[in-house]
């Protein structure tokens, strides 16, 4: 049993976690940076403590400050949310030695799945298909070039300690390989302090389909079916839906079963996601596992009716799962749009003060946000400002509802990508549901051509 939980995050997810803690009757501690003093998570928590200056490395990524904040406020657990310290093995270890519960999986799971090359090796050994690619991490561009030739162009470059699309590059031909490799290395070095990359064969027209898992400390593991996250801009998810449209039931069954198998092998004891790539011929490959709550978790919540965050906290408290696989069913359809404060045409952030906001509402409409009139969107952090989630009895109705909700959503004072979604949901390819990871790029080109 926890008494007081420190929420080591900001923005919409901090608010999401604090709401659930309140519902569960648990005390909450918010941490914040100097520039986030006025955000609602600071106000809604039972206690709040400033942990550093604006830049994330001084505050939300400052392991020492976060742990100390937990110690001085007598918090007995930390919820890391997503991003920041959520998949940081060293932070997980510090929590352990400080005697503070980390609401997430074991250190071993974070370590194994955090290293994408190790994760691929484990899957391969267990007979889970992985995309053809390098077996080891590579730092030398010459070695990498030979490996790329062996795998065959086009290839994907990815970071060994990957995440957030950092260091990902699609390289079509040998003559621009070395430049791409070096720039990817520089990006990864800045993000993770390590410049190791690996190479995968590029699979064209694939669909990104992931399965939500939940495990407990007693070896029980269940899945909450799938989400399709194929609409991506520069390897960042933009729109997600559950269940995945146009996915054969048989394949869905195999993906879910495989995900549970992976969870069991790892003795996985928290919320996690197995990401797969499904190609045109319905062959699937393991991409990676995320050992945290994900941004897009609400679409699964809307179709299964389960508060995933609450179950994650209960599992961390050492409670056995309350659900068995037979009680978990999908009803209807849900879609999430990630509302970012960006100039979507130029793809540049648009920080500033929200002068006025109107949030849509009604049956089946959920808007997870930290914004209200007057909120300042800081340039220090991610541009995600809200998640518009709609659910209805089927996909067609969900799209209609999304159209109405988008129309109603008004954010003044900063630019947002709302218009982008209004256009996406009118696209034939989207309406038919057969879109793949190539959709967004060609759609965007069409948009800008017309605009």
């Amino acid at each position, binding site marked *: 049993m926890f008494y007081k939980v420190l929420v080591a995050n900001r923005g919409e997810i901090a608010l999401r976690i604090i709401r659930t803690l309140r519902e569960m009757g648990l005390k909450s501690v918010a941490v914040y940076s100097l520039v986030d003093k006025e955000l609602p998570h600071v106000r809604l928590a039972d206690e709040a403590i400033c942990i550093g200056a604006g830049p994330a490395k001084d505050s939300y990524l400052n392991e020492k*400050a976060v742990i100390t*904040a937990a110690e001085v406020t007598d918090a007995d657990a930390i919820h890391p949310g997503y991003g920041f310290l959520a998949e940081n093995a060293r932070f997980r270890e510090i929590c352990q030695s400080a005697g503070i519960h980390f609401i997430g999986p074991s250190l071993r799971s974070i370590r194994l799945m955090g290293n994408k090359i190790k994760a691929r090796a484990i899957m391969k050994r267990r007979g889970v298909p992985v995309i053809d690619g390098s077996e080891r991490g590579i730092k030398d561009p010459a070695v990498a070039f030979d490996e790329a030739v062996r795998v065959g162009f086009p290839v994907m470059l990815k970071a060994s300690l990957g995440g957030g699309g950092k260091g990902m590059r699609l390289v079509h031909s040998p003559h621009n390989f070395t430049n791409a490799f070096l720039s990817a290395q520089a990006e990864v070095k800045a993000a993770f302090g390590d410049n190791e990359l690996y190479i995968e064969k590029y699979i064209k027209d694939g669909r990104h389909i992931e399965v939500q898992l939940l495990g407990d400390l007693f070896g029980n593991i269940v899945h909450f079916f799938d989400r399709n996250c194929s609409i991506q801009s520069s390897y960042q998810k933009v729109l997600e839906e559950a269940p995945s449209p146009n996915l054969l039931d048989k394949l869905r069954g195999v993906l879910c079963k495989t995900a549970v198998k992976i969870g069991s092998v790892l003795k996985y004891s928290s919320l996690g996601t197995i990401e797969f790539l499904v190609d045109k011929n319905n062959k699937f490959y393991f991409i990676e596992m995320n050992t945290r709550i994900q941004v897009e978790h609400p679409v699964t919540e809307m179709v299964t009716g389960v508060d995933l965050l609450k179950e994650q906290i209960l599992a961390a408290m050492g409670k056995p799962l309350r659900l068995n696989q037979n009680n978990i069913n999908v009803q209807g359809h849900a879609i999430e749009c990630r509302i970012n404060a960006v100039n979507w045409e130029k793809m540049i952030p648009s920080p500033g003060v929200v002068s006025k906001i109107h949030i849509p509402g009604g049956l089946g409409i959920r808007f997870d946000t930290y914004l209200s009139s007057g909120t300042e969107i800081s340039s220090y952090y991610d541009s995600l400002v809200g998640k518009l989630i709609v659910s209805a009895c089927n996909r067609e109705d969900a799209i209609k509802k999304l159209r109405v909700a988008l129309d109603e959503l008004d954010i003044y004072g900063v630019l947002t990508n709302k218009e982008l979604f209004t256009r996406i949901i009118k696209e034939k390819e989207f309406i038919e549901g057969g879109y793949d990871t190539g959709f967004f790029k060609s759609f965007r080109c069409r948009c800008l051509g017309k605009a």
Partner: protein
Amino acid sequence: MKEEKKPAEEEKQSLDGLLSLLKWVISTDITEFSLERDGEKVHLKRSSQEQRLQKTLNTIKEPVVIASPLEPREALIKNRPISKSMLTIDAPMVGTFYRASAPEVDQYVNVGDILKKGQIVCIIEAMKIMNEIESEIAGRIVSILQENGKPVGFGTPLFEIEPVTS
């Protein structure tokens, strides 16, 4: 027999009268006041209102908050007017504030002390490490804004300093 006032009682009455007179003086803006009566002489001299306000501020001690130790404290400090001429030494990190290196030894600094730049003023404990906090400014300590052994956040004002120009 006619009752005679006892001398002690008489003195008390005269004192009560004087007190109410003084109360009235204090309620006004008068800064100097003299009274001569029956061989008694009273002279009252007060500092200006501005000076008085500053003095009151200087003696404000932080309240002990039990229920929710952090927010009210921060709210209090934020709302408390610190004179423009005053500087503060703020916590450079989150942690527990200690005024001495150990319970049995002397506190690093006290109100009234003249600080040199680089002088250690307190300790902030973070992750079992005692971080000695040095003053980045020189001046006289006017007040100590946090209680020994209590948590402080990043940027929480710890000491109020009156700059000393030499």
